[in-house]
């Protein structure tokens, strides 16, 4: 493990102390801490040692790694990512085969009880052979690696909830990290992929406090997933005014009106896209004119069409209604005929009344009232 501190590393990279403190202020604010915490954050980050990180990629598409490595090299967040000792990442590391596995085992051995495990991708349980690395099944590698880890970070929707591999009918029996790791500090950083600065933000929080941040009921850090896209969306005022784009190229779309009718899942999605944005804070999906897909929510693949408004039911309700009409008409007609029959029988049983009957008994005159 490299003994260099984060500050030393940043100074080597040409980051000034002023730049570092500015970053600490931004980070403190990002983590929703009071301004008085800035110096504590700076102090903790200055002296933070390089933590060993083992990155396991299971049933995934490498999009999460792409998100992290491609989007921002010149920022301090990027340098923090550089600062961690990424001892095993089979997509990024030069070594392969036995040498690569050796690196993982060595990192686990040397940093026992101190290393972080980052997982992207879901884990297939139906048949361990569905996904293996160096002949080791994903589930075996995960269990072995997390055994002596200090904490686990599930990066991306696949690792956090099962994601695309878990989508119906889930052919591989894919499960999330939390399904297999119930007894370790676990942070879910979902998204398809997650916002890069959220991943580094979580790492920075861990470096600063040596503990995992406050999590919501889905295991997501509240600082980044505490508010919905809808609440933070710059198009929200159009939603409230009732101004909506109705197609991707109509006047409303050109004027930047709300994308709710085009299927935006912003109201049900908790993520930081609207505030942190993507590609060095250039833009984010809604700003580029496409509704939110809800990728940081569980089972978003199975939650219906991306282009159907959230208020529209997702099942085959037309068919259900069709069966109901057929059954309703059929049984209603039978019931109607039975009622008619009952009425006819009752009418048939009426005794006939003549004028003489009225003459005999004047009180018995309420027939047919």
């Amino acid at each position, binding site marked *: 493990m490299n003994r260099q501190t984060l500050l030393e590393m940043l100074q080597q990279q040409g980051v000034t102390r002023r730049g570092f403190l500015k970053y600490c202020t931004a980070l403190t604010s990002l983590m929703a801490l009071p301004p008085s915490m800035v110096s504590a954050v700076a102090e903790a980050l200055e002296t933070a040692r390089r933590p060993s990180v083992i990155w396991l990629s299971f049933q995934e598409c490498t999009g999460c790694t792409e998100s992290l490595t491609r989007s921002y090299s010149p920022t301090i967040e990027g340098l923090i990512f550089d600062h961690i000792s990424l001892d095993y990442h089979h997509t990024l590391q030069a070594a392969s085969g036995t040498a690569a596995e050796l690196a993982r085992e060595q990192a686990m051995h040397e940093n026992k009880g101190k290393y972080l495990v980052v997982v992207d991708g879901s884990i297939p349980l139906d048949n361990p052979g569905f996904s293996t690395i160096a002949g080791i099944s994903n589930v075996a590698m995960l269990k072995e690696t997390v055994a002596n880890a200090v904490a686990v970070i599930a990066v991306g929707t696949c690792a956090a909830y099962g994601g695309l591999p878990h989508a119906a009918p889930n052919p591989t029996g894919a499960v999330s990290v939390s399904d297999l790791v119930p007894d370790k500090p676990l942070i879910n950083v979902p998204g398809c992929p997650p916002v890069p600065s959220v991943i580094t933000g979580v790492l920075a929080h861990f470096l600063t406090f040596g503990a995992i941040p406050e999590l919501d009921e889905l295991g997501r850090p509240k600082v980044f997933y505490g508010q919905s896209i809808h609440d933070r969306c710059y198009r929200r005022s159009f939603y409230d005014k009732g101004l909506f784009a109705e197609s991707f190229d109509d006047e409303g779309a050109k004027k930047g009106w709300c994308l709710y009718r085009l299927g935006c899942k912003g109201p049900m999605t908790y993520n930081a896209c609207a505030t942190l944005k993507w590609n060095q804070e250039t833009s984010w999906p809604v700003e580029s004119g496409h509704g939110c897909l809800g990728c940081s929510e569980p089972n978003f693949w199975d939650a219906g069409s991306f282009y159907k408004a959230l*208020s529209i039911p997702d099942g085959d*309700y037309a068919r259900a209604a069709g069966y*109901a009409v057929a059954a*309703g*008409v059929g049984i209603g007609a039978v019931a*109607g005929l039975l009622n008619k029959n009952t*009425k006819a029988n009752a009418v048939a049983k009426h005794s006939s009344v003549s004028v003489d009957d009225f003459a005999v008994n004047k009180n018995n005159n309420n027939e047919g009232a």
Partner: protein
Amino acid sequence: MDIFNNANDFLIWTRGTGFNIAIAIFIFGVLIRVLEILLLGRKADYSEPRGTQWGPGLKTIISRSLVDKGTLNRSPFVVVVGYIWHIGFFICLLLFVPHIELINASLGIKWPGLPSPVLDAAAAVTMFSMLAILWHRMTHPVMKFLSTYEDYLVWLLSFLPLLSGYIAYHRMINPYPMALGLHLLTVELLLVVFPFTKLMHAFTLFLARWYTGAMMGRKGVES
């Protein structure tokens, strides 16, 4: 919600299977009830008609929906608050854009919606008036005597979609998928119970008022 892993699964169920079940029971029940009434028919009337049926029938559907002065004088509270909550309920149901989206997706018709703050106010007024009408039912001696458990059940099932919708709109329950799922569930409960309670008046009032008008029209009498 032990049967669901998380709020999202609950929302997926209420948007999918739950809605399918509810809409099927609703349509099935309404058809049975309406067909039963229609198929029972009426005795043939051999008297010579003194007027037409359709015109007076349609007119009566409208005239009986307007305020009746006698009733207004006798029980102004019930009439005024009754109108307020019915109109408010329909504003919330028919003029909120997400609801219009649902109607457009299932029936293929749409109309402009109102800005959210207007709907917000309408929902609040509607809920207040419903609470007032419940208070009236529970305190007025005659109303209290006449009320059955069905009256309270129907009040509750009509009130809950408004309340849950208000909560979902203001995001008072987190996470939002839980709030929206609860709103859909309360609507689905209303749909399921609808055909088998006095809520059927939403359909039968047209039959009843038309028939009254048509019958009187045939006799040449104003209704």
